[in-house]
């Protein structure tokens, strides 16, 4: 089962908040809190696993190590110096890279893709902030628009920027991600939210800049149901929202081939991101945000184990 199919099949669950309902909440913080608290309430185990200072392993002391990390009890029993290593880093950098190109302003229902991405960003930022991560936000289209560097104190700024942003210009990935890579000097968790209307090679090349820098990258591919199902019927002129190009289209004749192409695109992205150990998740804007939170949570869990 592909991510697309899983995304579509996981729509059931009355406890999840419909994005259309979230859209009525003006306050992004309240929205994020509502999402996260509701999400956490539904869990049967604590999501803060990564925050505990659990012991991971010992290694021999090497010159230069902090002597405060020497396990003195073990030294007493073995008369050797060992250093204690703990599982997770606390106070990690958490940066949200949000695509605000014009194509993100598309929506076939009450929530456009940008709004969905905005809610997702707020929820993730809120969630990460609770884990004592330093939260930052970078918006971009064909270049970086807003840059809020990760910080424990930037939660309000992130929410404010999310609240104010709007889509306007055409977008691209490579140039802004190159700039972001250069500016995010400290390794951390990077969440990239976009509709990814570029060739998979270009996308992988751009996103690869981040992973090559050592960032842990999570990719959320946000698409509208109309982009996934192509429900149009009347022959119409389809206009590219970014380039303005117009093409006459007979949906009933084109639908099959279009769906094959978009699914192939999603499938290829999923495979190639996975091959690069980059988490990829397709998000349908008609689905609740919880799916994205699950994805993020599983990622954090996996990440802490790796460390």
């Amino acid at each position, binding site marked *: 089962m592909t991510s697309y199919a899983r995304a579509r099949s996981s729509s059931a669950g009355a406890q999840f908040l419909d994005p259309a309902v979230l859209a009525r909440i003006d306050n992004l913080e309240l929205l994020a809190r509502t999402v996260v608290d509701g999400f956490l309430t539904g869990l049967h185990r604590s999501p803060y696993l990564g925050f505990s200072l659990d012991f991971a392993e010992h290694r021999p002391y090497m010159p230069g190590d902090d002597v405060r990390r020497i396990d003195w009890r073990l030294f007493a029993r073995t008369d050797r110096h060992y250093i204690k290593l703990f599982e997770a880093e606390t106070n990690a950098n958490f940066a949200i890279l949000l695509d605000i190109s014009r*194509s*993100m*302003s*598309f*929506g*076939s*229902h*009450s929530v*456009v*893709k*940008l*709004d969905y991405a905005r809610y997702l960003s707020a929820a993730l930022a809120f969630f990460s902030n609770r884990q004592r991560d330093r939260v930052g936000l970078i918006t971009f289209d064909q270049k970086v628009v807003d840059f809020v560097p990760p910080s424990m104190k930037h939660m309000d700024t992130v929410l404010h920027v999310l609240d104010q942003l*709007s*889509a306007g210009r055409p977008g691209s990935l490579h140039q802004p991600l190159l700039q972001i890579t250069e500016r995010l000097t400290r390794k951390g968790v990077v969440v990239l939210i976009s*509709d990814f*209307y*570029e060739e998979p090679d270009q996308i992988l090349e751009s996103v690869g800049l981040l992973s090559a820098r050592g960032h842990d990258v999570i990719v959320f591919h946000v698409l*509208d149901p*109309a*982009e996934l199902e192509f429900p*149009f*019927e*009347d*022959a*119409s*002129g*389809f*206009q*590219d*929202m*970014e*380039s303005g*190009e*117009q*093409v*006459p*289209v*007979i949906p009933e*004749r*084109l639908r099959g*081939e*279009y769906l094959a*192409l*978009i699914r192939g*695109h999603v499938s290829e992205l999923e495979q190639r991101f996975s091959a690069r150990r980059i988490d990829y998740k397709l998000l349908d804007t008609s689905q609740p945000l919880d799916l994205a939170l699950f994805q993020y949570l599983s990622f954090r869990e996996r990440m802490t184990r790796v460390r």
Partner: protein
Amino acid sequence: MSLAFLVPLFLLGIAGIAIPVVVHLTRRQRRNVVEFPSLMFLSKVPFQEQRRRRIQHWLLLSLRALALLLLAVAFARPFLDRSDLVLGGAGGPRELVVLIDQSYSMGAGDQWTEARRAAAGAFDDLGPLDRASLVTFAQGARVIARSTSDRTRLRAALDTVDVGSGTTRYGPALKAAQTILEESDLPSGEVVLVSDFQRNGWSGDEGVRLPPGAVLTPVSVAGDVPENIQITGLGLARQSVSGRERVTPTVRLARVGGDEPREVPVTLELDGQEIQTRVAVLEPDGATALVFQPFTLSQPHTRGTVRVPADDLSPDDVRHFVLSPGSTISVLVVEGSRAPTDASFYLRRALEISEEGRFSVRVRRGDGVTPQDLENADVVVLNDVRVDGASAERLGAFARGGGGVLLVLGERSSWPESAADVAPGAVGPVDDRAEGQGGRLGFLEYGHPVFEPFAGPRSGDFTGARFFRARDLTLSDSARVMARFDDGSVALAETRTGRGTIMVWTSTMDAQWNDLALQPVYLPFVHRLAEYLSGRVEVQPWFTAGQIVDLADPDALEAAGLVSAEAAGLDNESDRMALSPSGAALPLPAGDGPSYLPLEEQGFYTVRLAGSDPDRPFVIAVNVDLSESTRTGIDPEELVAQITAPGTDPTTGPDFAEGSDLRREDQERRQSLWRLILAAAFALLVLETVLSNWVSRRRSGTPGMVTG
């Protein structure tokens, strides 16, 4: 047969089909623009250029295109050109009128069979676009089938036609053909005249002229003139013997042809019973008269028939008549006691001279009129009588009861003042014009029934009579002058009183004061006077086939021999029924209007109330017109030359080229395919409207795109 168009230029309108196609390809594209995040995938779809022009609503497009196509075709006036199917082809569609002579002379030999065969042949030769009419004629013409291409109907109509009892008259038939051809929209016309072409059927001045281009094709079926014996006349002289009427039939016979003298038995039948048979000897081309023994006429509406053995032309071998007793007019002539002895000589003799015993004359001298005198009298003539008051009163009453009174004024005539209102005027002194040539009649009211028979030329000359003396007459207000002398004084005047008439003749009826009695017109004049005063109408023992009787007219009934409506079981309030000689029932509904009975068959027509069966019903005898037996023929070409336009040749004439165009128009007009096509186009447009509205509503239900 091929599809053709009268106005093919309109077919250019078919190019209008491109309009809905272009609209389907372009208009919807301009109208609906959907903003889509990226055309990255859409632009990758192969064959996009072809698909972008694909038409979505094929049904709508088809309806619109088909409607436009039908509109263009309808305006181009399509028709199935069947010119190549026209038989002969030279004249194009014809309007054929077959005139078939139905007169009784056509019954001679096998003429009628030949005539029907000729008519059927003409119908068989009809082309697919030809139309034909069948007209039968004798005295009049009757259109049996009009302008139809249905051969079956024409054949059926022809089968219903049979020889009649009429007389040939070509005028009405040709006039009917002329009318049919003039009203026809076919380019050529032809009249086929099937007849034995008798000369007496054509007078030459009928005023018939066939339309230009029309052809008259005479088909003569006249065979050899056979020997024919006919009853040319029948006299029914009446005599009153011992108060009963006796009738002496006199038959005149003629023989046409033959080689040797021939004995011919002649039979007299009364009420269907053979009474007498006499034998007449007829020389070749000879004639003779035969007198039957008198028979007593006792029953009203007695049917009589005189017949000779039927020959090749049988209708003229029989003569029917109907007689009723009591048709004699009783005239009482009262001479003044001091009048000359022979004052009524001429008058009496004139009235007695009547072949059929029309008048019964009684002469009495005296100055008064007694009630006994007036009994059984129809007319009272007071010849130079000094009328007293009582007699005047009686005469007034007699006139009011329907009798007629004629005052013949002489030297001693007078009319009492007490009855002046009854007489046409006051009698004055004698006007003596003995000097010179005397006076003459200067004015006659020819419109009056008395003088009506003399209206025509050589029908009686009253100007030859000279009048030397006459009495002056001062007319009353109600009097009407019928004749005046050349000095303006009144010669004959009348006044109507009640149902009768009182007349005054201001001179004598003998040769004393005038010489009118010596003039040829005297006898018919006296007869007309007596008949008019009696109020009787001359009864016709028979009618001629072709005549029409108005049974609602009492005078016509009386002329037809009706003695008493009550006795015959007739009244004007109930529906009547006439039975023709062939047994056909002819209903005669009661009403205020005329009730015409056309007498078309030879024999006896019986008229009675519907559902009644009186002992002596009212019967009308009908005989054929003997002129039809005269077999002198006319050259058909003479007839053709007189009624067709000179130089007409439908195959080469100037009308032919025009006729070709007319044929196309005619075919198109007759088929009128454009009406059907136009109706179909409108139906399609209505369907398209409904369908497009449904599609629009369905489309408006599709959710629109939201862009942030």
